[in-house]
């Protein structure tokens, strides 16, 4: 079967089996290997991409269900020599060790900051209806779908906080 996607602003067509996940379509069919396969069960977040601007686990989604969707992967954010704010912040704060979870962390954080700016509450928010300051606890809760096996969490949170400050 054939599925039309817009990936990082470019129209792409993928020919694939019905059981091909969005993750496998990106990595194995479009050679966009920045998006990583960790657990392949939605537990680690390494495969996080944006679908129509919202973060999702690309491993838990069928490519066929994304016909017409806009996908953003880590390759769409910046590139060596022209990193975006969040990528720059991860470098500055040393927000990784082995780096395998990093693309997923950055994609997830990209959407998370947008959610927080829109006033979406989280599990740890004091109030559901007031404004949400992006505290360390808020960042940790909102990023809990992204695991880091090297446990670089403190620096990941610092990098995200730094990027949030720069943007606001």
């Amino acid at each position, binding site marked *: *079967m054939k599925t039309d996607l817009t990936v990082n602003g470019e129209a792409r067509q993928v020919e694939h*089996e*019905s*059981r091909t*996940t969005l993750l496998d379509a990106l990595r194995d069919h479009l050679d966009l290997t920045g998006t990583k396969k960790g657990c*392949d*069960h*939605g537990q680690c*977040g390494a495969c*996080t991409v944006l679908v129509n601007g*919202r*973060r*999702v*686990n690309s491993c*838990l*989604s*069928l490519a*066929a*269900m994304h016909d017409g969707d806009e996908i953003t992967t880590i390759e769409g954010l910046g590139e060596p020599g022209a990193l975006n704010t969040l990528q720059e912040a991860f470098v500055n704060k040393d927000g990784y060790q082995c780096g395998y979870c990093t693309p997923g962390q950055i994609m*997830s954080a990209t*959407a*998370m900051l947008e*959610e927080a700016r*829109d006033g*979406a*509450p*989280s*599990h*740890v*928010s*004091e*109030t*559901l*209806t007031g404004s949400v300051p992006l505290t360390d606890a808020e960042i*940790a*809760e*909102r*990023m*809990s*779908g*992204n695991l880091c096996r090297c446990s670089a969490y403190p620096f990941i949170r610092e990098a995200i906080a730094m990027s949030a400050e720069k943007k606001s």
Partner: protein
Amino acid sequence: MKEFTYARAETLDDAAGQLDETARVIAGGTNLLDLMKLQVMAPEKVVDITRLPDLSEISAEGEGLRIGALVTNSQLAEDHRVRSLYPVLSRAILAGASGQIRNKATTGGNLLQRTRCPYFYDPAMACNKRDPGAGCAAKEGVGRMLAVFGVSDDCLAAHPSDMAVGLRALDAEVEVRSPDSSTRRLKLDELYRLPGDRPDLETTLAVDEIITAVVLPAPEKGAVQAYRKVRDRASYAFALVSVAGNVTLTDGKIARAKLAYGGVAPKPWTNAKVEEMLVGQAPDEALFRKAAEALTADATPHSDNAFKLPMLRRTLIAVLREATGLADASPGTDKTKDAA
């Protein structure tokens, strides 16, 4: 994953017409695809209903709210009407899964998600839910996450949803469309079946029925609502126990107490006796302790999870304290705003 036929439904009739014992509906897919990768589920056909019109909206219905079955968990938790008038629902959803999963998981799919019992998830283990008549490896196995109410000799699995526990405390109803195009409405207690000797049958839905919406009744003025979840990690973990409370005080007495419990039963659990004990009484520690004892009196824990009983009692007491003002509210307890 085993190969399957993918079909994209254009209308509800089209979707219903494609459903039989060998087919499964897919919407968010966050649970179904996980199970298909493990070959715990292996449908021959997957019917994609995400393009169906009109199922992705939250709209007013009478004085209540109608939540389309395809509304995502994020969309529902973030909705301003839900946050101010039904805060226990936002809190329950935000206590579950991760940001990525909530963006994908739908309202209907959340209700119909399968248990996370590790023996159900492992095709090498005996499981009556996966393979009727095969036996239950959980009985002699590791039982930390299993249910303590409503279980049977054939199945000890717990329903994993947080959202459904919040909905139960709100007396939500589920709208179901039958293949003859008629719709029926079910209370959550009418949607879910207890395992008995057929743990493979989890709901009262026919194979070709589709959940189209969840309907919330008119919001209760002046209610205090709370969702408190206890789990092994601070985030992104299923409940050991959870309690949803929806409590109204009038003249210093409890006028109404709707309580639901998660992580402890094959469906969002309730106990009418506990609520009857509370209604008409002034909030009081001794009363709460008595209610909590009544709640766990008929529990049947596994040898590994008797700890859930005192944990559930303490969690219920904590919710009641905050909901009635005996203790200051912590995040998770919210006073409802009056409807505009």
